[in-house]
């Protein structure tokens, strides 16, 4: 696996992420992996003990991860939200907006490319999970 | 015979494998026998072709004629715009397609 990208200041979680079913059965676990077909809302009642959610991305075109991430952020989850799998640099901007704050790409991501992609669009049309101020708000103060 | 076709990556033009390179004229297409996959892999890897594939063609006195109408339209141009085809001056070119 290539180097991970992390946009958090706290220490990385070393605990291996267990499957969603296993996590729900094991009270002691704090790192969970949500696969593309899993229903992320099953985690919501247990968010207090979650420190890491890793969302699997089998193919970069599989956009379920965006919804899964937002559902968890909208439920108040503030821990690490990691994307793991087939990640194309062109998607990182949307992923950040949906609440992902760390990336474990199967193939490498060039940090300079990532930074360029994240800074390309100065503003956004919608509010999402990242706190960006939408253009309509900039227009009307 | 089996011939190779695809599109030029930068221009999108329809191209045919001649045995040594790519031509926009199907008449130049070479029979690749069983080597099609290997040639395509190398050419695609070098980005000299985009979306390349192997097709069957008939050998005719005028050169290879692709077996499927889709590739014959690709070889010549839209049947409804002969003026935009590769042979705008040849009124019989359309018959070769159909």
């Amino acid at each position, binding site marked *: 696996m290539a180097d991970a990208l992390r946009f958090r200041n706290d220490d990385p979680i070393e605990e291996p992420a267990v499957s969603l079913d296993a996590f729900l059965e094991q009270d002691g676990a704090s790192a969970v992996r949500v696969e*593309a*077909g899993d*229903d992320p809302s099953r985690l919501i009642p247990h968010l207090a003990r979650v420190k890491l959610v890793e969302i699997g991305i089998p193919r*970069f*075109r*599989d*956009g*379920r991860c*965006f*919804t*899964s991430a*937002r559902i968890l952020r*909208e439920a108040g989850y503030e821990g690490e939200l990691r994307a793991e799998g087939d990640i*194309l640099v*062109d*998607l990182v*901007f*949307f*992923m950040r*907006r*949906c609440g992902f704050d760390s990336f474990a790409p199967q193939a490498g991501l060039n940090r300079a490319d990532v930074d*360029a992609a994240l800074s*390309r*669009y*100065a*503003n*956004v*049309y*919608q*509010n*999402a999970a*990242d706190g960006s101020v939408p*253009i*309509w708000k*900039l*227009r*009307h103060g | 015979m089996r011939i190779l076709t695809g*599109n030029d*990556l*930068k*221009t*999108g*033009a*329809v191209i045919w494998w001649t045995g040594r390179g790519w031509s926009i004229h199907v008449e130049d297409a070479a029979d690749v026998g069983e080597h099609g996959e290997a040639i395509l892999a190398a050419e695609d890897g070098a*980005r000299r072709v*985009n*979306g390349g594939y192997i097709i069957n063609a008939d050998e005719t006195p005028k050169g290879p004629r692709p*077996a*499927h*109408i*889709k590739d014959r*339209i*690709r070889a010549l*141009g*839209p*049947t*409804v*715009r002969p003026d*935009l085809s590769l042979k705008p001056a040849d009124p019989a070119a359309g018959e070769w397609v159909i």
Partner: protein
Amino acid sequence: MYQYDKYDQAMVDARVEDFRDQVRRRIAGDMNDDQFKPLRLKNGLYLQLHAYMLRVAIPYGTLDSRQLRKLAEIARKYDRGYGHFTTRQNLQYHWIKLEEAPDILAELATVEMHAIQTSGESIRNISADQYAGAAADEICDPRPWAELLRQATSFHPEFSYLPRKFKICVISSPADRAALRWHDCALRIVRNEAGEEGFEVYAGGGMGRTPFIAYKIRDFCPAAQIFSYIQAILRVWNLHARRDNIHKQRMKILVHDLGEEEFRRQVEEAFEHFLTLGTDFPQAEYDRIAAYFAPPPFETGLPEEIDRTDPDFALWVDQQVIAHKAPGYAIANISLKPIGGIGGDVTAEQMEVVADLAKRYSFDDVRVTHAQNLVLPHVRKIDLYAVWEALREAKLADANLDLVTDVIACPGLDYCTLANARSIPVAQKIQQRFADMDRQRDLGELKIKISGCINACGHHHAGHIGILGVDRKGTENYQLLLGGSGAEDTTQAKITGPGFDEDGVVDAVERAVECYRTLRDPGERFLDTYRRVGFDAFKEAIYG
């Protein structure tokens, strides 16, 4: 019409550079085609039979003369001197080079245009009633909502990699001129009993290999909450759609699998959640956008009479000109269906003629219709003759709106890599068969729609007579369908039986048409006769 502010302009400018970088990485070999394809499709760039094809967005089918002139300039400079208007109210160029595509986007951006989300598994360009702002029967102009939703759905972070494409349509009339219920998400502006504006929402429509007509998922969504409602629909679909079979990933399939009631229940639950997130645009933003769509300064006291001395002009008026909501004005439809021509194709010179006419006679406003025609929406009746003369000069004055020769056809196997059969030659032969104007007018409204493959870009499911091209062992074959409609009386056409070759299907169309002529009641349309007498009589006439 809407004008970009610095934010909108920065957005399309950034997209140009974004795409330029993607093209550079592809040509340099940093990306393979599997990676590049979804990215280029998000920007409307296909690889077609002869070259790349670029689909330019025409949001809600509205253009001004400056934009149309730019489209003409691009056609000349980067393509082969023409463009093709599509059944999604967009424009396609069929001879584009990948290496020039970023430059074309940069040119488009100078006139506030783009190709964002005109293809790929994204929220597509939003379509609308082509008579918006002019139609006598509309509740309000639907375009401010279409523009608001254009912004809301552009680069949506959660919904840019959807299971499949997602098409939104907005109208505000009881009459449906936009094939409303054939969309994934269909919005009709209505007023409730309290007089408040809102949306009747339909979901799960679509053509393709498994056609469904959208069902009414909500009677009334308050206008200010519509973005939340659409996001709720998208979220339910995005999370639960199949991802294992591209042919079963459209939203219509999920609606069908879950059932309408269960899908509605899940959407309503998600809707309640979205309402708490503050994602809806505020009234002030709607007002800002709506101001751009204020009615043009219509003159008053204009004459209503039209001088019909010239019989060719009178014929054109009868067929192409529609009532306008402002006295003294008319809506003038421009046919892009000359007999034996290519439906929807317009040369650069013709674009410039239409741009000039729009500027001079129609408050600088041109519309594109899903039937692949153009519209000058606000013409003074006293100017109609001058408009007609200029159109005639440009070979744009055919008088066949909604008649048998006003055929919708996709580009088909002449251009499209997905096609199984050619569409355009069939359309041309039908036009030639029915070219006689008296015969066309005697037959009245008769919508023929031809698709060159099962993806149904030519709307064959919605044709009074539909034709579907298929590949039968390497030769082109055409199935005939009857009884479809893309209007307010939406129905899905039914396949009549075994297919025909190219000439055979034209003969079959004529047999169906003659069957109608024999069976019709006075004043009855083809579709209504078909519905009254039923499928079997027509099938008998077609197959004997």
